[in-house]
Each structure stands twice: as structure tokens, then as C-alpha cells.
């Protein structure tokens, strides 16, 4: 019998919310009906004020913490959520104090309506007909999920990378519906270099002969080679040069001499291929294409005369912005731009730049300074909730 670690949320079961009200999309597309798969951890208090929304990144999903009950103990252990280090009893996002909700984004491939779902109009998978979804569409769909759960105001909306963009968009689109906004390893927009990397990934997928213009489901195939290359290049950009040097250096897999062949000889080659293969098995290519487009399109300042300060002028929540020194894909400077715009609006914002070697993926890791900052900030969020409770019921006026 599988015994989950005591500081985890244990084994969890995803839930499903179905929506029949059409969702108008930013791309002028429209979803007549859709479903969102999500997980929750902890207990919602009677006032429904202790809820935290977790927004996932490019390749994430609704399974942020705990384990999925699987056929054997080994696979159950491997099914650990992507932010299990951060979410759980006594952890920074403390499930003893908060009710945590993590949905899978629309367009995803983990249970929410996406390109691999059946299009009710045709009875076949959407494939390339699935409309382009953007960050603001996700935020709107998440707001509907909040309504379904009876959550009017989130104690906090938290996200890393693409998830941080959603958190930021929440503070702009629904300023009254969140008290705190935590933007981690993110940016207010991608730069040309970032868009370039994304397009290399997309081209790798779209030029794979097995892509079939996105209609590969019925042919029982998938652009696995393209996906593998896309993931490999993505993975390189999520690590830092120093980290790769430390982890792999020029080490060879087996021998100390070269084979003078094209088989993978260096450790870094086999590592990246392994990462690529793993990804192919769990992720849908059309979803990957959609998610990278959402990243590229995100630019809330564009509608405000390219001024991020104006774009953030209506925010009401408090902010924590976190960046990582070795992250060159979402560099600290991008986070500082957000902080600067918030400061210009006199918003309550704290900012921490975590010194580390692990690159963009640092936001998923247990780095002491990072964990402490998150713990302190969320401790404050939790204390505000109990103080609010005291002043409401304590009769202090």
C-alpha cells in the first residue's frame, strides 16, 4: 500500500467542470462549450476567502501537488505533482491554511478541452481547428471556474513563467478578484530572442512529416521527432550555461575515447534525447504549438500605448515578483520591468532576485532563499486572512 509522505497532500483525484456558456476568444474564435480539469488541495473556509489559484506554465498541467493513485507503488511515486515542493501541509503554499486550485489551461492535453478533444460539431478531434487561445482567454475561463467554485476573491493568484503572465493578467482583468499576485520567473512580454526560440520549436513540429497539418490523431501517429527537437531546444534554454557545464561538462557516456560516429556520445546528448522522448509520450504537439503562441502574443502593455505602467494602473492587489539570477530565458531584468511599472503606480510590491545556477527551471526547484521568500510572503497572506477574521468577529470596531 502506497504511503504518501506526511508533508504532501497525499493522493489526489482530478475534478472536472463543464461549461455550456460559449467563450469568446481574443483570436475572435469561439468555444461553444468546454471543460476544465482541475485539482484542489486543502479546505475552502466557510467565507471562501482562503483560496489560491495556481496557473501552470508551458508544459505544466492541473497536477501541481500530491500523487495520482496508479496501479503500482513505483508509478504512484513517480506521479508527483510539478510543484509538490511548494504546495502541501507546512510548505510555502500551506494546504493547512489555504484551499489551492490548479486548473489545466484550455487548449491543454491533460483533460481540459484542447486540440485532442472531440469537436462536437464534427465528432472528430479538433486538431488544427482548435482556436488560438491566449493568456486573457485562460484568465477569463479561470474566472468562470472561480464562479463555479463560489470563489469571488482569490487570496492569491500564483504562477511561474507562462503562469506568471496569467497571474499578472488576473490583476489587470479582474483587479477586485485577487488580494495578492505572485509573478515568478516571468515577463510582461517576450523579446525577439524568446519568440525566435519558440518558432524554432514550432517549425520542428510543423515540418515533421508525421504532423499532417495537425490532423495526426486519426492517422494514429504524432510528430514525435519534431516534438523531441522542440523539447530539446526548449530544455537547453531553461537551463543555464553554468548548470550544463556542471551537470554534464564534456563527459562521455561510456568510454573515454570518441567513436567518431553520430550516435549520442556526450552525456548532454543522451540527457536531452531522454528529456525529448519523455515529453513526446506525455504531451500533445498541437497543444505545444498553442501554448508557445500564447506566450508570444502576451503583451498587456500593447493596448496601453506600450506603457506597462498604464497597463497596470488599475491593479489593486499586492504583488510579489521573483526572478532567478541565472535565468536567461526570463531574465531578472524582465521582472524588474514589472516591478518598476508597479512602483510607478505606487502598488504594494516586493521583489526578490534569487541567486542560483539552475536557470529558468529554478522556479520549480527547492532553493532555500526562494522557499523562504515564498514562505514569508504567503505567511503574510495567511495572517491577513486570520486578522480579517478577528476584526470581523472580535468586535474591535
Amino acid at each position, binding site marked *: 500500500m502506497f504511503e504518501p509522505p506526511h508533508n504532501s497532500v497525499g493522493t489526489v483525484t482530478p475534478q472536472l467542470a463543464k461549461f455550456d456558456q460559449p467563450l469568446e476568444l481574443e483570436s475572435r474564435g469561439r468555444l461553444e462549450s468546454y471543460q476544465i480539469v482541475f485539482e484542489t488541495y486543502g479546505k475552502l473556509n466557510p467565507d471562501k476567502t482562503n483560496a489560491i489559484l495556481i496557473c501552470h506554465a508551458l508544459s505544466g498541467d492541473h497536477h501541481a501537488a500530491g500523487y495520482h493513485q496508479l496501479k503500482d507503488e513505483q508509478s504512484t511515486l513517480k506521479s508527483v505533482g510539478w510543484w509538490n515542493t511548494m504546495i502541501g501541509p507546512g510548505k510555502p503554499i500551506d494546504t493547512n491554511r489555504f484551499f489551492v486550485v490548479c486548473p489545466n489551461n484550455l487548449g491543454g492535453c491533460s483533460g481540459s478541452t484542447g486540440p485532442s478533444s472531440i469537436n462536437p460539431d464534427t465528432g472528430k478531434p479538433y486538431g488544427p481547428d482548435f482556436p488560438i487561445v491566449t493568456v486573457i482567454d485562460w484568465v477569463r475561463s479561470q474566472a468562470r471556474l472561480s464562479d463555479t467554485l463560489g470563489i469571488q476573491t482569490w487570496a492569491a493568484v500564483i504562477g511561474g513563467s507562462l503562469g506568471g503572465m496569467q497571474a499578472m493578467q488576473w490583476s489587470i482583468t479582474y483587479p477586485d478578484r485577487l488580494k495578492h499576485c505572485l509573478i515568478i520567473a516571468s515577463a510582461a512580454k517576450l523579446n525577439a530572442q524568446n519568440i525566435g526560440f519558440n518558432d524554432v520549436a514550432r517549425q520542428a513540429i510543423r515540418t515533421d512529416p508525421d504532423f499532417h497539418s495537425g490532423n495526426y490523431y486519426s492517422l494514429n501517429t504524432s510528430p514525435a521527432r519534431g516534438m523531441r527537437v522542440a523539447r530539446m531546444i526548449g530544455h537547453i534554454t531553461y537551463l543555464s550555461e553554468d548548470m550544463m557545464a556542471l551537470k554534464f561538462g564534456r563527459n562521455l557516456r561510456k568510454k573515454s575515447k570518441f567513436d567518431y560516429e553520430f550516435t549520442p556520445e556526450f552525456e548532454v546528448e543522451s540527457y536531452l534525447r531522454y528529456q525529448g522522448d519523455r515529453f513526446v509520450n506525455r504531451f500533445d504537439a498541437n497543444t505545444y504549438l498553442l501554448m508557445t503562441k500564447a506566450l508570444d502574443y502576451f503583451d498587456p502593455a500593447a493596448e496601453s500605448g506600450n506603457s506597462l505602467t498604464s497597463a497596470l494602473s488599475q491593479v489593486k492587489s499586492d504583488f*510579489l515578483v521573483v526572478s532567478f539570477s541565472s535565468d536567461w530565458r526570463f531574465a531578472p531584468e524582465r521582472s*524588474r520591468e514589472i*516591478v*518598476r511599472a508597479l*512602483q*510607478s503606480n*505606487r502598488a*504594494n*510590491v*516586493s*521583489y*526578490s*532576485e*534569487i*541567486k542560483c545556477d539552475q536557470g529558468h527551471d529554478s522556479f520549480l526547484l527547492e532553493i532555500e*532563499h526562494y522557499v*523562504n*521568500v515564498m*514562505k*514569508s*510572503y504567503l*505567511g*503574510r497572506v495567511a495572517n491577513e486572512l486570520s486578522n480579517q477574521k478577528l476584526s470581523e468577529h472580535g468586535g474591535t470596531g
Partner: protein
Amino acid sequence: MIKSLNQSTLTRYDHQMISNWVRPNSRVIDLGCGNGALMSYLQTEKSVTGYGVELNPEMISQCIDTGINVIQFNLDKGLGHFDTNSFDTVILSLTLQAMRRPRELLKEMMRVGKEGIVTFPNFAHWRNRWQIAMTGKMPESEQLPHKWFDTPNIHLCTINDFHVLCHELGFQIESSIAVRMDGRQTLGLRALPNLFGEIALCRFSKP
């Protein structure tokens, strides 16, 4: 020097003096805010709003614990982060002497704020003078506990030096006081602040 104090009292004597100079409900930024004690005190007692700036990672979570807004940033990179005239008071408490370019930072302070408050250890305190005179070595004290080769305090100055720089930068000195760390007001301190003051506090504004 550090008494055991309750929550609403400050642990550093110069903080008390600073808070006397800060107007209620004003916009304040505390550069080199340490664990956030001063900013937190000012928020509670004077209802100020604003930010603390600190570089040391260990201090960041402590600052967040106290409930202040803290920005982790290296002051040696200037205050480009902050808009011109966006604060009523800019505080630099016992940090000036550790800056690489104190002159540039002072100019930046007067760009982002209407008024500046700077506190620093007065190097001309008689005990420092005495140590140099008698031992021929760099002075060490409670305020300056480091050896010359590993001290973070790379730009020490005296009260007189500071006044000269303020004058050169065209700042108007509003108040200047010197204190002893025990808080005692002595005749000597009043008569000769540059000789008997351990900590100097200076409030200045734009001309």
C-alpha cells in the same frame, strides 16, 4: 547599546531620531533597509507608504515578515528603478559608508525624493582620532567592528566632510545632529558634535 525593546520601539537609536523627521502619511523609501525594522515602525506609527530596498538575501524574507514592501536591489546600480520626485523622504541609514559611489547615490536620492535623511558613523569621533593617534592603526569600534582589509565600510567620512559634500551638491541642510549610541546628551556633544558624536544624522532638501 541595543536594549531589549518591545515591538513598537526601535532597536537602533538612530531610527528613533529619523522617525521624528518623517511626516505622517508620507511616501518614504528606506535604502539599505536591513530587516525592515525602521520601515515597519514608520508604517505603524506614521502611516507612511513606500518601499525598503535591500541587497542581502537573508534580509528579504525578514522584511517580508515585518509586512513591508521590499525590493531586492543593489544600490550601487543607482535608483533608476524609481521615478523622479516619487517620494517625500528618502532614507539612507548607516549605509552611505558602504556605497561605492556615495556622491552619485546622494544625487539620486535628491532626484527621487523631496527630502533626504542620511545617517552615518562619524569617523571624526574622538575615540577614532585617539586610536589613530596612539596606535597608528585604523580605528575599530562598536560601529566599525571590521579590520581595514575586510570592512564593507569603504567610504567613511566625518560630519564636516558630509556637510562640504552637501554644499557642493547644492543641497539645503535642514537639520544636522550628532548622537551618542547611549542616547545621552552631553555638553561636549552639543558644543563639538564632530568630536563627540558617534552617529551623525542629517536631513537635507533640494535648494
